[in-house]
């Protein structure tokens, strides 16, 4: 152990704020990156699932319907 006490460990000989800010930001970003990537994957899977159930329920319309170009008369 390079420090005599826990408070000395926190203080880091006066350089504590700098060191701890760095470690905090590093942890924050790495954890954030991990969680964000995790959530992205979950979201993709969820949207796939929704789309699949939609396709199963509704009639799957394949391709574009032929255009009729009939005029529409809004009342």
């Amino acid at each position: 152990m390079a420090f005599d006490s826990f408070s000395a460990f926190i203080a880091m000989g006066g350089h504590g704020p700098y060191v701890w800010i760095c470690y905090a930001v590093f942890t924050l970003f790495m954890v954030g990156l991990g969680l964000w990537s995790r959530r992205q994957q979950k979201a993709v899977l969820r949207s796939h699932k929704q789309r699949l159930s939609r396709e199963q329920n509704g009639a799957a319309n394949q391709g574009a319907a032929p255009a009729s170009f009939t005029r529409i008369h809004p009342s």
Partner: protein
Amino acid sequence: MWQFIRQLFHKFGSPKWFYGIASKMMPWLLGIGLILLLAGLVWGLAFAPAERLQGNSYRIIFIHVPSAFLAQSIYIMMAVTAVVTLVWRMKLADLFVRAVAPVGAVLTFLALFTGAVWGKPTWGTWWVWDARLTSMLILLFLYFGVIVLMSAITDEKSSARAVAVLVLVGVVNIPIIKYSVEWWNTLHQPATFKLTDKPSMAPEMWVPLLLSVLGLYLLFGWLACLRMQTEILKREHRTRWVRDLATAEGN
């Protein structure tokens, strides 16, 4: 023979195969990576001796150097896969660059941030136009360019190939940039003393450093697998196996 190589190549290039392998490897990557990184950081923070000149502020090295190191290696890895994308048009290579570029940018940012905070007790200012920091800043710009181009081109295949060209051009430039920034630095302010690059480092210092570098590497492997899986799921959403996966795991 040729046929055999081609088949092998196809197998390794198959997204489905990769998805399975990645799922198996990821817990190990995450577990061992975390253990190594934590061991390195705790050792570095609490047990390694203080540095003679800088005191305890040098303990930032245990995250600064791994971040910087990894940020640079990620760009190199991207360049290698860019060659694969352009020459063999392998799907997985396309996905790798797409998945990993944001990670590289974040690590570059962390290297810059920790470097800047480290500079405050060492040089007395938050930002010094030091050669290392400046090169890292330019690397960050390169990453931004890649990410911006990636999102600007909607067609996935064209996007992957265009980004591959950009990454290769960037990787040719990196040594030139490094060299010129160092030369520029000596021209303007002869460096009094640098943050890292100590002539001799005690084993109690470099062993934890090595541990955290290794740990971060493995964690990056985990992140890369995870993010590539996501890209695979996005791109292969019409295939049966992804459909099955979605119905099974979507809950």
